[in-house]
């Protein structure tokens, strides 16, 4: 089930300038554009409703102003972007693999991207519908979430968490994929139990749909629902635990190199395990009733999402920065960044376990003295300031290394996967000739390495998607159309026209 012949088209030239960015088909550039546009989120003012925006706090009565509108509309646009990307990833990964690249030879990061993409296309429509209801409530005066109109405030919670729990796996699975690539490279050993790591990722993806109500134990869903969701929540800890033991076994007996990327990957394992253990504690409804809405939950979410997802992302940045830019990130600053993050992260969030169990509520910034919260909160404050400083170290390192970093060759870490066979930064077409894949880590096999390196020679035309500015026009149209809901028809109507023009012209472009 793998592709056998390569397509044929002219060798693309490297391009620069604004126009080349607007019409780009290069995934690195699309990623940069995505990141830059995401910053526009800060334009709209804060939606003061907590991250899960429970109804009816979001109603016009309790949240006047445009903060919530902008948040809801922004999430819709983000949803469209994420759906488009996820469809693209699914089809590319399933249908456009290199010859010999069987599913069970795919790098773990690609596998986790596939699982994540399926979660995205199934979870985002649910939040889309919930936000549509919310926008109707706020703009048209319906009462989907208005209790005086007979509505059930729990509807939002169910819709939100039916999206929200798969969403936490959307955040953590890519980080797990990154760690599964970094650990083998710096242990000089193949990933231990690769198929099991893949299967547990898929299992987590499935089980992620059956646990959402564990966010809602405190609303009183009844003993049957509570028991069911407690059991599924405990069950989902198993594949996660399996992965952790696989990573530990990958390290076992390996020739470990403590580069910054490896340190972050190890930090991921340690902190994510702690977050998993506290998560397992509130899988039990009676324990959860004590912990809901206290700082204990705040500690948990930061151990899994900061200690987990963010540490994984940092590992990925240090690991692939040389591939993306052709330059190393400074290792000394990187190690300072890691240790500062590791220490300050624990200083900030570990005391929250204690104040949470002592009963300190989350989202309330004041408390009376003599509650025993003072010292712990002081530690958290110091930790948070240090955490900010450690990110500054990273920013300095990032900017400096892009300008004057040490040049990295095509394979700075001696990695086993295919990306290390092509030059850094990679040309827009990646491989000049698509290589034939014979193993999971081709560069660690003699014949695989030769085949991969040979694939860098341009032997003929290369198939590339055609450049087009219509995607950018359509995206601008969608953004204006939905912004029109906040700012008025004079933004929305041109947006609608632009969107239709963009989509229609895009659809009728010649395909190559």
């Amino acid at each position: 089930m793998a592709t056998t012949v390569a397509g044929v088209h002219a060798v693309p030239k490297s391009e620069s300038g604004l126009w080349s960015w607007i019409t780009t088909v290069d995934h690195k550039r699309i990623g940069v554009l995505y990141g830059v546009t995401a910053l526009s989120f800060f334009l709209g003012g804060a939606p003061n409703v907590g991250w899960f925006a429970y109804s009816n706090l979001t109603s016009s009565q309790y949240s006047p102003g445009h903060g919530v509108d902008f948040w809801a509309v922004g999430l819709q646009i983000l949803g469209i972007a994420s759906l488009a990307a996820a469809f693209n990833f699914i089809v590319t990964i399933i249908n456009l693999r290199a010859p010999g690249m069987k599913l069970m030879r795919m790098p773990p990061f690609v596998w986790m991207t596939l699982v994540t993409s399926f979660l995205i296309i199934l979870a985002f429509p649910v939040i889309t519908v919930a936000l549509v209801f919310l926008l109707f409530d706020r703009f048209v005066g319906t009462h989907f979430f208005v209790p005086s109109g007979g509505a059930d405030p729990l509807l939002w919670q169910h819709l939100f968490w039916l999206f929200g729990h798969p969403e936490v796996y959307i955040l953590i699975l890519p980080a797990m994929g990154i760690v599964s690539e970094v650990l083998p490279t710096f242990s000089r050993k193949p990933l231990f139990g690769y198929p099991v790591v893949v299967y547990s990722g898929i299992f987590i993806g499935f089980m992620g749909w059956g646990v959402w109500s564990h966010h809602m134990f405190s609303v009183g869903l009844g003993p049957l629902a509570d028991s069911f969701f407690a059991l599924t929540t405990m069950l989902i800890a198993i594949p996660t635990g399996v992965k952790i033991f696989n990573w530990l076994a990958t390290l076992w007996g390996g020739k470990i190199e403590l580069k910054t990327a490896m340190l972050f990957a190890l930090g991921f394992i340690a902190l994510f395990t702690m977050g998993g253990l506290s998560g397992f504690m509130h899988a039990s409804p009676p324990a959860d009733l004590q912990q809901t809405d206290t700082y204990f939950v705040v500690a948990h979410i930061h151990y899994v999402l900061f200690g987990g997802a963010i540490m994984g992302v940092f590992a990925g940045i240090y690991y692939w920065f040389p591939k993306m830019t052709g330059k190393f990130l400074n290792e000394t600053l990187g190690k300072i960044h890691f240790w500062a993050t590791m220490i300050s992260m624990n200083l900030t969030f570990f005391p929250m376990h204690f104040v949470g169990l002592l009963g300190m509520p989350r989202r309330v910034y004041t408390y009376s003295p003599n509650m025993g919260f003072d010292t712990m909160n002081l530690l958290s404050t110091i930790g948070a300031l240090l955490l900010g400083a450690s990110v500054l170290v990273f920013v300095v390192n990032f900017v400096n290394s892009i300008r004057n970093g040490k040049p990295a060759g095509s394979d700075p870490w001696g990695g086993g996967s295919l990306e290390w066979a092509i030059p850094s930064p990679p040309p827009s077409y990646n491989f000049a000739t698509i290589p034939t894949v014979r193993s999971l880590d081709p560069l660690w096999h003699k014949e695989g390495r030769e085949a991969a390196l040979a694939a860098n020679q341009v032997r003929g035309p290369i198939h590339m998607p055609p450049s087009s500015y219509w995607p950018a026009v359509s995206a601008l149209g969608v953004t204006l159309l939905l912004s029109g809901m906040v700012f008025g028809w004079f933004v929305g109507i041109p947006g609608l026209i632009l969107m239709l023009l963009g989509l229609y012209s895009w659809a009728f472009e010649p395909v190559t």
Partner: protein
Amino acid sequence: MAVAALSHPAPEAHPTSTGLNSRKMLFWAFLGSECMFFGSLISTYLIYRGRDSAGPHPHEVLNIPFTSFSAFVLLMSSLTMVLALAAVQHGNLRGTKIWLAATALLGMTFIAGQCYEFTHFFYDGLKLQSNLFGCTFFVLTGFHGTHVTVGVIWLWSLFMMAVRGKLPVERALDVEIAGLYWHFVDVVWIAIFTLVYLIQ
């Protein structure tokens, strides 16, 4: 989005790992995503059913004989869609044009029926803001109607391609994908018709 016109014949597509066409695979994934979209809308309707103290209630406004007729029209459009695909696959240009136009016209009849129905409900006192039935009914059926409208535009675009002779046998996939969408929208209507109209 899947429509693409070309004056010269398309070069052979990328060979794919599964042997399936990539556009078709993407479209099936898209329909999976749409299932969750309509699933959430229909679930909300069902959860809120019967919670209203103030009317109008479903049995006071819903006109089953009339909507059965529109449902029949929409179901028949699936048949004409299949005939359009068969025609384009056999290179029958005249049949392609006739059946694409027939499908689009049946879709437009359905939309017209929905416009009439909505207006009628409005004068019966059922507005978007009236009660939970009003909110959930209009948003659910409104989104379905929007999907049908998009499908009608898509079908007329294909019809124009056929008129200009840009829909040869090699481009039958364009019609097939539009057909997937059209049948999906029909299936969703069967679910809505059963759960909203028939089981009150």
